[in-house]
């Protein structure tokens, strides 16, 4: 009997509404992430499947390429030939008009090279559409087609070149050379999509993570700073001293930003080492736009003739000083919104238990857009989820760099204006709370106060 009473009391104190809400929220978050991951993996599976169709542009006038495509058809592969009348290597319109993610181009001279025993050149064009992991996978190349051609050429060399020179042995081992092109922002550049994805990985994973840590830490700190002072009644002593309330407020906010920046920096340094260890230095080399490997590259030699940095700039993907400034502006505004909101919420704390309840809404609003932007490009989502996510002011901070890189100017400017309006409102509310009686009179509604009437087992002791 005695133990039963003790257990009931302990459970009553621990199983508060806040604790139950926290459990449900965590479960829901992982279910949602699981679904996003499931969709992403599903796309990967679909890419892996060969549906027996190849789409290409044949600019070669020789006989070998025509015969090769006829042989593919005879083997049961559906060959879809597209025409190209553009200038040079600008293939963005072809992908756009035919709603394609990638396409293979057999350039002029393919047959002549192969017939003379030289490595035959191919061009592979891939469209990159966004920074989310799902978008990168979505933008992935169909590696099957160049491999098919390479296999075909290998057989061709085997049948036609009986007495091979040393040079021809190399050609036999790598019968075709694929020059990779990437299309983004309606522009084409000679760069492998893996390199572009490598850089975008930094944008879609590392940046949101840094923003998340910064927002969470700064919000938590300012909330704790205000609520602890209120609970310990040091705030009353402080504010009855000859100091201005705004001075106290600004000192708290600046201190929270400085410590949050330090925290975010140290966490990110640690995280970079962690990623480095996990990926065997690949992540770091990808972030630095270094050479990337893939199945295609392993099977076929890759010829990159353009400087990668120049190519990225050509695509409009390189980050300029102005863009960095705008991203930091969005980050600063997001941080300021988080701090103002946390300040208001923190002022409602009446005890330590209510503090964890109060932290929950800030955590949800920073965590949801963080996870979603990591996996998906919000701009490619349906109108309703997009609007819901964009209503969260922190979302615009997470998507700022993506919007700038992919030149979604309307989304960026709209987000900036929305954030500024939101900041104005929260700043006004925060100053109002801090300079009026609300600082001492505001509190959580009784029913929501954890550990009080919110307990499953009635009132707390």
């Amino acid at each position: 009997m005695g133990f039963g009473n003790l257990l009931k009391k302990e459970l009553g104190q621990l199983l508060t509404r806040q604790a139950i809400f926290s459990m449900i929220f965590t479960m829901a978050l992982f279910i949602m992430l699981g679904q996003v991951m499931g969709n992403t993996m599903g796309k990967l599976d679909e890419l892996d499947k060969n549906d027996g169709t190849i789409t290409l542009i044949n600019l070669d006038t020789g006989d070998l390429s025509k015969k090769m495509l006829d042989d593919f058809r005879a083997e049961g592969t559906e060959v879809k030939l597209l025409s190209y009348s553009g200038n040079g290597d600008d293939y963005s319109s072809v992908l756009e008009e035919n709603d394609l993610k990638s396409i293979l181009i057999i350039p002029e001279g393919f047959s002549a090279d192969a017939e003379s025993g030289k490595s035959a050149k191919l061009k592979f064009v891939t469209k990159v559409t966004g920074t989310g992991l799902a978008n990168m996978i979505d933008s992935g190349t169909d590696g099957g087609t160049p491999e098919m051609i390479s296999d075909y050429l290998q057989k061709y060399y085997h049948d036609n070149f009986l007495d091979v020179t040393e040079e021809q042995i190399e050609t036999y081992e790598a019968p075709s050379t694929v020059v990779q092109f990437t299309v983004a922002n309606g522009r084409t550049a000679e760069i492998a999509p893996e390199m572009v994805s490598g850089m975008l990985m930094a944008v879609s994973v590392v940046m949101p993570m840094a923003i998340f840590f910064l927002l969470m830490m700064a919000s938590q700190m300012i909330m704790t700073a205000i609520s602890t002072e209120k609970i310990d009644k040091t705030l009353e002593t402080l504010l009855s001293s000859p100091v201005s309330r705004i001075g106290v407020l600004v000192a708290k906010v600046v201190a929270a930003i400085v410590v949050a920046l330090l925290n975010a920096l140290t966490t990110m340094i640690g995280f970079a080492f962690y990623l480095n260890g996990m990926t065997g230095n690949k992540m770091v080399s990808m972030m630095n736009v270094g050479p990337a490997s893939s199945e295609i590259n392993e099977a076929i030699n890759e010829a990159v003739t353009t400087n990668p940095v120049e190519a990225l700039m050509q695509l409009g993907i390189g980050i300029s000083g102005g863009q960095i400034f705008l991203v930091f502006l969005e980050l600063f505004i997001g941080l300021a919104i988080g701090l103002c909101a946390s300040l208001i919420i923190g002022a409602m704390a009446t005890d330590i238990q209510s503090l964890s309840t109060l932290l929950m809404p800030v955590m949800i609003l920073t965590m949801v857009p963080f996870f979603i932007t990591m996996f998906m490009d919000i701009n490619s989502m349906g109108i309703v989820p997009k609007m819901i996510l964009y209503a969260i002011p922190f979302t615009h901070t997470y998507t700022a760099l993506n919007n700038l890189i992919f030149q979604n100017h309307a989304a960026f400017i709209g987000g900036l204006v929305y954030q500024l309006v939101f900041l104005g409102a929260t700043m006004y509310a925060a100053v109002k709370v801090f300079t009026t009686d609300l600082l001492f009179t505001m509190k959580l509604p009784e029913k929501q106060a954890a550990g009080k009437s919110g307990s499953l087992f009635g009132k707390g002791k």
Partner: protein
Amino acid sequence: MAVLSVNGLTKCYKKGTNAVENVSFEVNEGEIFALIGPNGAGKTTTIRMIATLLTPTQGDAVVNGHSIVKEPAKVRENITYLPDEAGAYKTMKGIDYLYFMAGLFSSDKAQIEKYVERAVNMCGLGDRLEEKINGYSRGMIRKLLLSRAVMTRPSLAILDEATSGLDVINALEIRKTIKKLSREEGMSFLLSSHNMLEIEYVSDRVGIISHGHLLEVGRIDEIKEHYNAANLEEVFEKVVNV
């Protein structure tokens, strides 16, 4: 001469319900004035308004010629406030806390040193001031806070439940300190307490407050005589008709 003059102070938190209504009293120079009443009577609300933490709905209070409504910053230069069950910054050492608080009242280093020296002498914590506050007992924290409240020799020190939760010895020490500062240095105090016997020992005049109304104000001996009561508790019973 009145250091504090309270005129018709009213505070309404919810529409139609006044936590404090039309409260008026004065605290003279060198006087210890106490607001007494049960929990929820309106003592802390009155004190918080005078300390410029809350804004009055109606009325005003003037500290050394400065209105709490019009010149709250000036008022804060003339007062110190010790809230009920107040804490101190736990990660600070006792001595650092005193320096921090002294720095809020003056930017002159020599003056700050004087304030801190006075607080160190008064609090009696000795070497313990070099330790962090999170290791202090409740009595030690209260002594530290009281010495902080009087180190600047404010025109008016406002102490809310100055000895609540303290043992007899600590409470007695604090009462003696308040009395000494009033008598020897001419400091004025506004106290609030629900401990009538303590107030009877330490105060010169009292105001009896109940349900937000100030029901009686006067010298303790005069009030006791007026109500034919042996002590302040009996006076309170008769005034509020308990």
